[in-house]
């Protein structure tokens, strides 16, 4: 269900404010409270931003895929608005993931980029998202259908991308011995706090984008009504 008009009105300031507070708190905690990682030492601190964005990137992609599917099925414009908003937010989050990842990779592996499973998948996913936004902007009248089709195809392609480069995982891990689920203590708290912070930003961005698309449409419809009534020229 796309957020109703009144919901977008309060979502933007509330989640924007929560995100702003969270961002300050997160940065402060990351540099003062969280201990150094046992293996990667100081450079591991970028992890809270990197993975925090990556989690929300996948949420955004999921929202975009599902609402595109619902749009093709039901043809309700609100699903299309939501898909567009999610895709644009996903492009921004994906750019953050790739850039912070690249910076971290330079520090941890001494390479800006390695052709490794998760990097490859994120990059291809991001390419599909950029293509989506390009189509929305330049495909004219049939942009909504085309972009929805692209989103659905891209989502179906994800598992194939994942199997494509399955050559052993050398992605840097958050803890010394495993993944996000094994984090403990301050690391765990700050990690989930940063995920929540960027999720608040995500909600605020999506709500404001949906509201602006809806505003554009209403303006267009009013203008058409005005033209029909002979009030505008």
């Amino acid at each position: 269900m796309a957020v109703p008009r009144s919901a977008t009105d309060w979502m933007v300031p509330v989640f924007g404010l929560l995100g702003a507070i969270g961002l300050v708190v997160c940065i402060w905690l990351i540099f003062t409270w969280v201990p150094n990682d046992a293996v990667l030492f100081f450079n591991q601190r970028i992890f809270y931003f990197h993975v925090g964005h990556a989690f929300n990137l996948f949420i955004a992609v999921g929202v975009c895929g599902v609402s595109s599917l619902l749009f093709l099925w039901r043809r309700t414009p609100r699903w299309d608005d939501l898909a567009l908003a999610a895709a644009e937010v996903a492009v921004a989050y994906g750019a953050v993931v790739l850039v912070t990842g690249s910076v971290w990779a330079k520090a941890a592996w001494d390479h800006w980029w390695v052709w490794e499973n998760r990097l490859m998948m994120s990059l291809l996913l991001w390419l599909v998202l950029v293509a989506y936004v390009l189509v929305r902007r330049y495909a004219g009248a049939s942009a909504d259908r085309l972009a929805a089709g692209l989103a659905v195809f891209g989502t179906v392609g994800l598992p194939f991308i994942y199997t494509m480069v399955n050559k052993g995982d050398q992605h840097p891990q958050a803890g010394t011995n495993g993944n996000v689920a094994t984090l403990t203590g301050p690391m765990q708290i700050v990690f989930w706090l940063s995920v929540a912070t960027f999720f608040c930003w995500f909600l605020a961005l999506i709500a404001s984008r949906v509201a602006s698309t809806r505003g554009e449409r209403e303006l267009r419809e009013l203008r058409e009504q005005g033209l029909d009534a002979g009030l505008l020229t």
Partner: protein
Amino acid sequence: MPAERPRQGVLRQAWRIAWKDLKVELRSREIVYTMAFFGAVIVVVYSFAFPSSSALVRLGAPGLLWVSTMFAGTIGLGRAFDRERENDTLRALMLTPVPRLAIFLGKGIAITFLVGAVALVVTPLMALLMDVPFFDHPGELALALLLGAVGFSAIGTVFAATLLKVRSRDVLLPVIIYPILIPLFAFGTEATAALLKVPADLDNAWYWIGLLGAYDAAFLVLSMWIFESLVIE
């Protein structure tokens, strides 16, 4: 929409549409000749652009083969649908009392033949000019290329048909389909690379060919299901 028809009916209708396309093509031979020539020119460019030491060629040739086939295929794809646009014949096709599924399959089959024709030109030419031993395992290579052509045509047909009325379709077609096709391209390249190894790594080749088949199956089903909601006019 027409009444329910037996399954065989759809396939026969699809074949009629494909045969119509192929007959038009056989009369002018415009697409086949230009595509094949384009593919050949790419191969010649490659043979100048890359070192011709046979060890290096063995490593690079699989990618070059798939890139040139895909580039030439994109040209043919755009042209095949331009032909429908010029006389507005796609609308006539849509008005015929056959299910959209038959139209999709018919166009897809015709394009598979065109891409296959390009592969038939490019593969021997590369084997000849760059001294690549493509014909040590002709059956496996042909199967991989055929599966590649099927996947390319399925995805390409859906989006080329949807883009038909869009002004910037020539540039948007590759923008949309390449990110989706990257897994297909990678599976095909890996399969070809496994076949070119000394001695040929048949187990690996069949693994990648199997993935090509899975990719084709997933996207064929998706394309058949989505074609109707994407191509409205």
